[in-house]
C-alpha cells in the first residue's frame, strides 16, 4: 500500500497525435496524490477528455495515438502494459464516471446486475459475497431502498440516482484512481451539489485520487485541491486551487475567470413608466393528454400530466424576464406555449395586446412575426443544407419583403451581431458554435419582433463565448428595445441578464419578482435551496477571494 504522500498517478510529458500527425496534446505533465482531487479545466476542444482517455488506455484506435511521454499509475506505466493487464487495471485500479449516465449504463440489465458484473470480471468472489458487496456499494452512495434499486433498470431511476449507480460501480473495487469526466454537467444544480459532496466523501473514506474534468469554474471551486487549466492541448497554468483562482498568472486563466458570470444580480435598470406591455401571460396551463386517451370503460377517466399550472407574468418593452428552474419544472413548456409551438390548455397569452392562445394556425401567421425564438443547440438551429443568407431572409420574405431588401437587411444584421457581412453566402458548418448562435439571433431579429424568447440560448456554449453572446443580447436590447424572455437553468446567467426573475418548480410559479429581490434575498425555501446549490458559491470571482460563510 502506498503512503498517502506518494503519487497515485503521474503523467509526464504526454503527447498525443492524430493519425496524420497533428498534435492534440503537447507535453502534458501532472501528478495526483492519494486522496487528492485534480481538476482539468478548459473549454471544449482543449484536450481534457483526450487526457482522460489516454490515461485509461481508451484512445480511439487508428484515430489518435500516444506520441511520447509516460503515464504511471502506482508505479506501472499504463502505456506499456499488455491489453489484458490494461483491462485488469481498468476497474480494479482506475475507474471512470461519465457525463451522461443514461448512455453509460446498459438499458436492458438491472443496475444491480451491472455492478455485479464488475465484481465477476475482476474478483473470484462467490455469488452471495458479491451481492453483499453490491449492496454495500449501493448503501455507500446513499441510495434509498437499496433492495428495490438493486433490481431496477436504468430508465426507472432519476438522473442523479443513475449517476450514483455509476459512482457505486466505479468505486466497488476501491480503485486507486477515479476519473470523472464532466460527471455533473447533465444534472440539475441541487443534484450536482449532492453528487460532488458524495464524491468528496467517498474519496476521503477510501483515499482515492480523483482526476476531475470540467468546464465549470464553479465546480472547480467546490471540489478541486489543485487545478490545471488547459488550452489547445497544453496545460497553461497549474497550481493549488486557491492560488490559481486568486492570482492567475496567465491571461487565458484570467479571461476564463472573468467570464464566469457573477451571482450578484445586475443593477436595477430604470423602467420607463409608459413602456408598453408586449407580453402578458395569465393563468397559463398545459396538460398533456394521458397515454391511451383519457377515456376508460370502468372507473374514473385517466388524468393527464400537468406540465404547467397557473403561470402568470408580464413583460414590458426593453425588459428581460428570466424563467429559472430545474429540468422538468415546466419552463420550456411555458416557452413553447408562448411561441404557440404547443397549444396551451388554459389561460391567455397576449402579444402586444392581441390574444393568441386560441388562434388557429392560419390566423396565427401575422402574429408570429411579433415574437421570435432562439434555441439552445446552435448546431441544430440552422438548416445545414442552405446558406445562412437564405435562412436569414426566409422570415422577412414570408411576410412580403422583397428578396433584395431582405438580403441587404440580412447583411446589416450580420454586422450587428458581430460577423462580417460577406459571410452571408456561407453554410452553417463553416461557423463555430458561438458564431452560429449569433446568426440565430440575427435570424430572430430579421423579423423585427417585439419579444425574443431565448430557451437556454447560451447553455451549450463555452463560458467565454457565453459571456460574449450575453453581452450581445444586452447590446441589442438597448439598441432595439426588444423584450427578452430568457429561459435558463443557470442562476448566474439569470443574475447577469434579467430584470425580473420567475422561479418555477413542478410546473408552478414559486417566486416572481425583481431579480435583485428574488436572487439576492429569496423568500421561498425552494429558491433559497436553488441559490445555495449554485456551484462555486464559495468563491467571489469578482474579487478573487473565498467567501467566508
Amino acid at each position: 500500500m502506498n503512503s498517502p504522500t506518494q503519487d497515485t498517478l503521474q503523467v509526464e510529458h504526454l503527447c498525443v497525435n492524430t493519425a496524420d500527425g497533428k498534435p492534440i496534446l503537447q507535453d502534458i505533465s501532472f501528478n495526483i496524490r492519494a486522496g487528492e482531487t485534480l481538476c482539468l479545466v478548459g473549454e471544449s476542444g482543449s484536450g481534457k477528455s483526450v487526457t482522460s482517455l489516454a490515461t485509461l488506455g481508451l484512445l480511439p484506435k487508428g484515430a489518435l495515438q500516444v506520441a511520447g511521454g509516460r503515464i504511471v499509475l502506482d508505479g506501472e506505466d499504463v502505456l506499456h502494459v499488455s491489453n489484458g493487464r490494461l483491462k485488469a487495471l481498468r476497474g480494479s485500479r482506475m475507474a471512470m464516471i461519465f457525463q451522461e449516465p443514461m448512455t453509460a449504463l446498459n438499458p436492458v440489465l438491472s443496475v444491480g446486475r451491472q455492478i455485479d458484473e464488475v465484481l465477476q470480471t475482476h474478483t473470484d468472489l462467490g455469488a452471495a459475497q458479491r451481492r453483499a458487496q453490491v449492496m454495500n456499494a449501493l448503501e455507500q452512495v446513499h441510495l434509498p431502498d437499496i433492495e428495490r434499486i438493486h433490481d431496477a433498470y436504468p430508465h426507472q431511476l432519476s438522473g442523479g440516482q443513475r449517476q450514483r449507480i455509476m459512482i457505486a460501480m466505479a468505486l466497488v473495487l476501491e480503485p486507486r484512481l477515479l476519473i470523472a469526466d464532466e460527471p455533473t454537467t447533465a444534472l440539475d444544480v441541487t443534484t450536482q451539489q449532492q453528487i460532488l459532496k458524495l464524491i468528496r466523501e467517498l474519496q476521503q473514506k477510501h483515499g482515492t485520487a480523483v482526476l476531475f474534468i470540467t468546464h465549470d469554474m464553479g465546480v472547480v471551486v467546490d471540489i478541486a485541491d489543485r487545478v490545471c487549466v488547459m488550452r489547445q492541448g497544453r496545460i497553461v497554468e497549474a497550481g493549488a486551487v486557491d492560488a490559481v483562482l486568486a492570482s492567475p498568472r496567465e491571461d487565458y486563466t484570467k479571461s476564463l475567470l472573468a467570464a464566469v458570470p457573477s451571482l450578484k444580480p445586475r443593477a436595477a435598470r430604470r423602467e420607463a413608466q409608459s413602456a408598453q406591455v408586449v407580453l402578458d401571460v395569465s393563468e397559463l396551463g398545459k396538460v398533456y393528454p394521458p397515454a391511451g386517451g383519457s377515456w376508460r370503460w370502468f372507473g374514473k377517466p385517466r388524468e393527464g400530466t400537468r406540465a404547467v399550472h397557473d403561470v402568470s407574468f408580464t413583460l414590458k418593452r426593453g425588459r428581460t424576464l428570466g424563467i429559472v428552474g430545474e429540468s422538468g419544472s415546466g419552463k420550456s413548456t411555458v416557452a413553447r406555449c408562448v411561441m404557440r409551438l404547443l397549444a396551451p390548455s388554459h389561460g391567455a397569452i397576449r402579444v402586444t395586446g392581441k390574444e393568441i392562445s386560441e388562434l388557429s394556425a392560419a390566423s396565427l401567421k401575422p402574429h408570429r412575426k411579433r415574437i421570435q425564438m432562439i434555441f439552445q443547440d446552435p448546431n441544430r438551429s440552422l438548416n445545414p443544407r442552405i446558406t445562412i443568407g437564405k435562412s436569414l431572409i426566409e422570415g422577412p420574405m414570408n411576410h412580403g419583403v422583397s428578396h433584395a431588401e431582405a438580403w441587404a437587411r440580412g447583411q446589416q444584421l450580420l454586422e450587428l451581431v458581430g460577423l462580417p457581412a460577406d459571410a452571408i453566402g456561407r453554410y452553417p458548418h463553416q461557423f463555430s458554435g458561438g458564431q452560429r448562435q449569433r446568426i440565430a439571433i440575427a435570424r430572430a431579429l430579421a423579423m423585427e419582433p417585439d419579444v425574443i424568447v431565448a430557451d437556454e440560448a447560451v447553455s451549450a456554449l463555452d463560458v467565454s463565448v457565453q459571456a460574449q453572446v450575453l453581452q450581445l443580447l444586452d447590446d441589442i436590447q438597448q439598441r432595439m428595445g426588444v423584450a427578452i424572455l430568457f429561459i435558463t437553468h443557470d442562476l448566474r446567467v439569470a443574475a447577469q441578464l434579467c430584470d425580473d426573475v420567475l422561479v418555477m418548480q413542478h410546473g408552478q410559479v414559486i417566486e416572481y419578482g425583481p431579480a435583485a429581490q428574488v436572487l439576492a434575498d429569496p423568500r421561498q425555501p425552494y429558491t433559497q435551496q436553488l441559490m445555495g446549490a449554485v456551484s462555486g458559491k464559495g468563491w467571489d470571482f469578482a474579487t478573487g477571494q473565498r467567501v467566508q460563510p
Partner: protein
Amino acid sequence: MSKPVTLSLPAPRRRFVNLARVPLTSALALLVLVLIIAMAVFAPWVANHDPVALAPAFRLKPASAEFWLGTDAYGRDLFSRIVYGARISLTVGLGVTVLSILIGLPLGLLAGYFRRLDALLMRVMDGLMAIPGILLAIAIVSLSSAGVWTVMVAIMVPEIPQVVRLVRSRVLSTREEPYVEAAVLMGTSTFKILTRHLMPNTLAPLIVQGTYICASAILTEAILSFLGAGIGTEIPTWGNIIAEGRVYFQLKPSLVLWAGLALSLCILSINLLGDVARDALDPRMKKRGAA
C-alpha cells in the same frame, strides 16, 4: 458593441466520392454496369443479328464466329437477344425506381408531417406491404395486357410502402429539429417547409434505397418473364430467354447460363454501387460495417 470577429473558414468540403479510394470491387461493378448500359443503349449496333428473326435452319447452333454465343431453339442469335434483353431490364429497373420515388416521396413527406394523415396513410401502406409482391404483379399482369408499363406498375406497387416508410421516418426525426421549428415561427408555408427543410434530408437514404429498388425490380421482372406472367414471349427479355432455354437445359445449358450471368452481374453491380453510395452519403454506416 463587439467588433466583428474574423472568421476562420475551412476549405470547402469535398462532397464527391474520391475515386482513388473506391475499392476494386466497386470499380469493377461500375465498369460492368456501364458496359451493360452501353449495350442496352447501342443495342442495334452491338447486336450482330436480329434478335427476333426466326431461322429454323440454324437451330441450337454452338458458339461460333457467326453466332457468338450460339443460337436458341428457334435459331435466333443468343448474344443479340441478351443485348436487347438488357434494354427491357434496365428500363424496368429505372422506371420502377423513378416511379416509386415520385409517388412514395410526397406520400412519405405528408405522412411524416401531418399526424392525422399519418394514421390513415400508413395503414394503407401496411396493407400493401402485406400482399406478396410477385403474386400482386401476376394478378395485375393477368388482369390487363402484358406490356412494359403493366409490368412496371405491378412491380412498383409493393415497393411504394418501402419508400413511404423511409421518407416518413426521416421526416419524423427532422421535424423536431429547431431549424424546422424556427421556420414555422417565421411563418414559412407548410409546402416550403416540406420541400426546403424536410425533403433534402430524405434524399441521401432515398438514393441508396433507390439502387436496391432498382436491383430488385430487375430481378422481379426476370422472375415474371420466367413464369410467363411478364412481358410477352415475342420480346427478348432475360427472363424469357431463361424460360425458353430451360426446356433445352440438358441439351444446351449455355442458353440459360449466359442470360443468368447477365442478370446476376447486373444486379450484383447495382447492389455494390448502392453500397458505395451509402458509404459516401452516410460515413457512419461504413465504420460500423468495417468494425
